[in-house]
């Protein structure tokens, strides 16, 4: 009798194993992403006047339209810079591409405000290359678009470069027999990495739309400033602030819809296992020009970071840094690493479900995108509402709350990246294993994860980078004496010695770059081993 019950239970669990695991991941999404937004929604529901007063004047509409325009322009420029650069760095024999690529991605390790500060040191009226004219351009919409586009272009570059390394070499090899490199790139490689390009466009649009620091610094009106005015001003009105961002929900859904329409449910012949075996595309007579292009773009991206290094070098910034850095790098690295791991685990399950079109997965996908698009300070208020309770003090008063915040805001990185990666592989292997009797967990850990080991490592690293560069989420609820480096840079920025602030920013770039290089090296060793 007991054996029969046991067998029935096993059959039941096997039949529903995938749904049960997806449900666990859904609980993760609910706790990290949905709950904070849910409590804010409840506030608005309890106080309908908040919603009406927030949108009663024309100003929020104008600001929303301006921010949409700004974000679209930033996305367009970032794609124009990032896609060709991703191809050149990722797949060609352009000279010095690795070093140039590393220089190019550095801006993404810093909150954009610090990059704007770096540009100010270069193009401000008294900057290294500054004049009245350059200052006028910097402090304008065009300046904001360029600063943000150069800050976010590395997101496009790195996603395209990594995706190109995942394209099945046999496709490319076949094409190269009959076509020149440019034709191979345009006809084979770029269509193959369309999902990655679409993903990067969504990420850049969302980042640019919700960016607060750069528009404020460059005195450009933007929608997040209106939200922030209701959270950082004297009349603290989180309900009204949330009412302001409610229209972002359809925007987030529209983004997802666009991506799906653009990419569709195409399955690409991409595997990612033979990446290290292929030859790089030979550019021939175009090599010099392409190399120059790579280095110009890298120089432009690296200029504000180099300006910060230069500023740190003046006035003993690096020597004094030790007295001010505290435990901030440790706080950021620990909480970031744990959050990145959570994000990758949930991302693997939900991303797989999205890639395979399981019921409910689209809703989860939309929710993580919504949490990402929501301005971070608002998500922060929701997190305080949910987690600041006496029973939860071991979470709220410690580094664990940073993990909660990072996971909520950047869950989209794991879900979307892994959805794209997994959607590019055939489900045949999984189906064969299922026929042979392997349960879902076994297929997930024994087939999906191993086949996509590089994708998993990339998702983890990308999530880590986003956590390490985060400022706007953590600033609202970081635990006492538990601030990450970005927060410390900002709290010290108020009257702190400029060279020390620049040195801290430079050290933060170096630490993040080191984490990425070590992580990429370990991942590449793991994939080979």
């Amino acid at each position: 009798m007991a054996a029969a019950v046991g067998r029935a239970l096993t059959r039941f669990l096997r039949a529903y194993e995938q749904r049960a695991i997806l449900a666990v991941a859904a609980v993760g999404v609910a706790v990290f992403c949905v709950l904070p937004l849910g409590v804010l929604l409840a506030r608005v529901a309890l106080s309908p006047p908040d919603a009406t007063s927030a949108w009663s004047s024309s100003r929020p509409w104008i600001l929303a339209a301006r921010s949409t325009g700004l974000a679209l322009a930033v996305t367009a420029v970032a794609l124009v810079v990032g896609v060709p650069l991703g191809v050149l760095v990722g797949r060609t024999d352009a000279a010095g591409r690795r070093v140039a690529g590393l220089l190019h991605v550095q801006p993404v390790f810093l909150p954009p405000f610090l990059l704007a500060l770096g540009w100010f040191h270069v193009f401000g009226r008294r900057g290294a290359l500054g004049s009245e004219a350059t200052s006028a351009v910097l402090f304008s919409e065009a300046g904001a678009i360029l600063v943000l586009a150069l800050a976010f272009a590395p997101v496009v570059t790195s996603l395209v470069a990594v995706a190109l390394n995942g394209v099945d070499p046999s496709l490319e090899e076949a094409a190269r027999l009959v076509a020149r490199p440019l034709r191979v790139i345009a006809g084979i490689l770029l269509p193959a990495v369309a999902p990655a390009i679409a993903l990067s466009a969504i990420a850049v649009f969302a980042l640019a739309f919700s960016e607060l620091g750069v528009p404020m610094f460059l005195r450009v009106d933007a929608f997040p400033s209106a939200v922030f005015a209701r959270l950082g001003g004297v009349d603290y009105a989180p309900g009204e602030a949330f009412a302001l961002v409610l229209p972002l929900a359809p925007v987030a859904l529209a983004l997802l819809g666009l991506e799906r329409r653009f990419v569709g449910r195409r399955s690409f012949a991409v595997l990612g296992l033979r990446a290290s075996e292929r030859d790089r595309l030979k550019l021939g007579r175009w090599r010099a020009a392409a190399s120059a292009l790579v280095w110009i773009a890298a120089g432009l991206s690296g200029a504000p970071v180099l300006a910060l290094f230069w500023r740190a070098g003046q006035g003993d910034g690096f020597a004094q840094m030790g007295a001010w850095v505290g435990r901030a790098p440790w706080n950021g690295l620990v909480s970031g690493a744990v959050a990145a791991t959570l994000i990758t685990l949930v991302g693997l399950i939900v991303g797989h479900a999205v890639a395979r079109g399981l019921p409910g997965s689209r809703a989860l996908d939309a929710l993580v995108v919504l949490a990402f698009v929501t301005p971070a300070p608002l998500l922060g208020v929701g997190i305080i509402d949910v987690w600041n309770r006496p029973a939860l003090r071991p979470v709220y008063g410690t580094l664990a709350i940073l993990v909660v915040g990072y996971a909520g805001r950047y869950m989209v990185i794991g879900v979307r990246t892994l959805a794209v990666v997994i959607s590019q592989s055939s489900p045949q292997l999984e189906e064969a294993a299922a026929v042979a009797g392997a349960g879902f967990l076994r297929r997930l850990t024994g087939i999906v994860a191993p086949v996509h080991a590089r994708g998993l490592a990339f998702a983890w690293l990308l999530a880590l980078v986003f956590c390490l560069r985060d400022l706007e989420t953590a600033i609202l609820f970081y635990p006492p004496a538990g601030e990450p480096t970005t927060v410390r840079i900002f709290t010290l920025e108020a009257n702190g010695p400029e060279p020390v602030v620049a040195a801290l920013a430079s050290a933060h770039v170096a630490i993040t770059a080191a984490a990425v290089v070590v992580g990429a090296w370990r991942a590449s060793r793991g994939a080979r081993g």
Partner: protein
Amino acid sequence: MVTRPNRVHRATFLAGLAVLASVGCRQSSREVVVYTSVDQVFSEPVFRAFEQESGIRVRAVFDTEETKSTGVLNRLIAEAGSPQADVFWSGDPVRQMALVKRGLVEAYVSPRAEGLPPGLRASDGTWAGVAARARILLVNRERLGTEAPPRSVSDLADPRWKDRAAIANPLFGTTTIHVAALFTAWGEDGARSFLEALKANGVKIASSNGEVKRLVVAGEVAFGLTDTDDAHEAQQDGAPVDVVYPDADGLGTLVMPTAVVLLRGGPHPEAGRKLVDALLSAETERRLAESAAHMPLRPGVATPTGVRSISEIKAMTVDYGRVAEEMEKIQPWLRQWAGL
């Protein structure tokens, strides 16, 4: 083939959880939690000195320049259901009134507050002042050339300075307080006209007082309205700037002491009282005077060279309680004015 990355991830995750758990469980009775909008660069050395003297660990949350005074204040309000902090050290004498109004403050008459004049402490023990800043005009000598420098806050609206002056966004920081003080002094119509005139005069609205300092130092504008500690920082860096204490022959200069409050329901009330006592000491005033050019409020504290004492300037007559009320009242209009 791929077990290694999984193992690495698992190990990282578990190690991280262990670290987080260990940090989470470390609740010490010999500690105190303080939230402050006094600049970290000035307040942290004060906390370190307190730690050395008392043996009590200070865990601090600092404000950023952009959200100055409202970031941690709003966090205190958001956390009111389960207070996390014992002490709030405000960078100005107005913000803490919002906490008093919401019943989030524990009255505590510190023995160190006894010598203070009545306007610089609450009679019911809800707050007490220590070391003050002033709102000044920071002028770039090189950008100014041979022109006569501005002398009044009203010069911001003078066409002579069209497109050449800056203030911080009046929705945040001490600029909010300054604007509210002007509303109390000039009345609603006068203050509104002044702010509209600023717009017409092309005054640049920076994100913070620190940003105003940066714009003046870089010569982007000829002068800007900011705080004495920002000006002191610029002068320490050797920037070509001068400080003007505005309206010496009129309204007077706005002076703002920092304010200390003990919070109700904080996790370490006893240690909180000790920190309040330490922050209200003459030693704290001396430190802030030396590091941040704050003006001491206690007569016995020497004023370092280069720092003016309150008696040397004409201070604006102001009731901080009224300014607090005015500040809340004008917010919707100010948001409209700022286009937000």
